[in-house]
């Protein structure tokens, strides 16, 4: 099911000379720098065949794994930033700096 926002146009792409794209969308000819990106694009914006749908699911699975690690780092980052900010403020207001 096409999920592309109909109001937004397709942005221009350019492949540097001498390079061949790792993946190309069979429906709209867009080049991608990885098959992973191409599979996600086909699943998101076009009506995938069964085989393409499987590749899309596999790509989503890969994304979920990568995202889990990223989110873990983001949460730790937020926590550390918050704690550091509170400690910094208490040190400054307490006259430490």
């Amino acid at each position, binding site marked *: 099911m096409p999920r592309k926002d109909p109001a937004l*146009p397709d*942005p221009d792409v350019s492949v540097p000379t001498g390079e061949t794209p790792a993946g190309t969308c069979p429906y709209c000819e867009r080049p991608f720098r990885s098959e992973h990106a191409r599979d996600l694009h086909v699943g998101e914006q076009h009506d995938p065949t069964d085989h393409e749908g499987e590749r899309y699911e596999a790509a989503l699975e890969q994304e979920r794994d*990568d995202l889990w690690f*990223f989110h873990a780092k983001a949460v730790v980052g937020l926590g550390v930033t918050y704690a550091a900010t509170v400690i910094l403020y208490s040190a400054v207001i307490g006259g430490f700096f």
Partner: protein
Amino acid sequence: MSRDRGPVGERAVRTAGLAATATLVLGALTGRASAHAGSLGGSVASATVPTWLVVLTGGIVVGGTFLFTTLLTDHEAMRGVNWWRVSLSTPVALRRTVRIAAGAGSVVVLALVVWTGVTGTDDPTRDFAVLFVWAGWWAGYTATTYLVGNTWPLVNPWRALVAVGQRVLDVADRRALGATDRLPGDRAADLPDSWGVWPAVVGLLALVWVEVVSPVGEDPQLLAGVVVAYTLATVAGGLAFGSAWFDRVDPVSRVFAAYGRVAPLQRTDEGLAVRLPATALTEKPLPDRPGEIAFVVALLWVTTYDGLVATPGWETAVEPLVDAGVPALFVYAVVLLAGFGLFVGVYRLAARRIRRAADTYVTARAIERWFAPALLPIAAGYHLAHFLGYFLGLSPALVAVTAAPLSPPLNTAVAVLPGWFGSVKLLCVLGGHVFAIWVAHSLAFELFPGVVAAIRSQYPSVAVMVFYTMTSLWVITQPYGPPPFV
């Protein structure tokens, strides 16, 4: 009995025991703390936060907002938020009446501004022209365009004058041709397409330079002269080029159109729609015309420039140049253009880095155009921080003089703002950046497939935004002084 409880029961008992112990400990500590507070005698000393910490906090808030938005990756939920709207359809007849009334009213106000400017007093806080144009219109009205909606096409007096002028010319043409039904073809000449929106960019930079270096902000006669000159130029341009003038050349109309895209009230084909603030930016892309990106960057730069030239640091930096004999006007102009070039350069560089970070074939130029709408909330937040205090301070004088513009009262009051108002200004700048982070996040998801590429693509823009926030906050916290040497 303990044999019957089982593992769940054991856990429940353990939890209860822990809770009881915790309560006892807390109770003991609380008892000690309140005794301690009693001995303080109720005296509280307020601490001031040093400027460097305020600036750093701004950067932390913006960076933290980005980290927080990376936790929101449900594309459908994001679209639900961004696409939410309440439609208000307005009947066509009402629209026409409102348009005519608003146009007529605005022309009357324009005439009043010119008249009170020409016959103005020496004291600018008593003059209707100065107060209305700078406090009422440039500060207050502009704020409504991004807080409520862009009403400028409705209340633009010059547009009304051009419409009247076109009617007059049509009637004259019809008389000249005889009583036939054949009207001349579209009179509007064509602006070259290759110019795109660049005339408005040049116009905006010129307008801000004039506003900064000349006493047009206090001198009623000079203001009236500038308004008359602007009226002649705009009406001539509007009659010659039609609505393309207001779309591509007139900087004022473009500024309000740009700010209007941040507002909740948006114009749709059916009428009006109310949306969440800044969400309209996630849908309408920038048209593919030369200068569109430059105009948005210029709008951002001129709000920074306006604040920068009022800082004590600016005076210290410019003083040796002026003493060495460089004309001050020249210094202001060069910095205006160089700063604009710097902002454009940094934005271009960020777009190239985004292309690399997202590992994509999308051109850097397309990325620039895609993400440019995200800059508009920053400009709006900065404008509000800059001008809210100015507007509120002068509003008693504005109200008093508007009540009797032709014979203003001898003493007009100026409001003094409380000390905590500085925090409001900081919040405005921060708010603008937080909205911008959300818009950029949404736009990245619409551009790049998947989630991880979309998040990675934002690293360069967030880095720029953190740095820019800290610089803006530093400018805002500086004591205000009028631009020196001009």
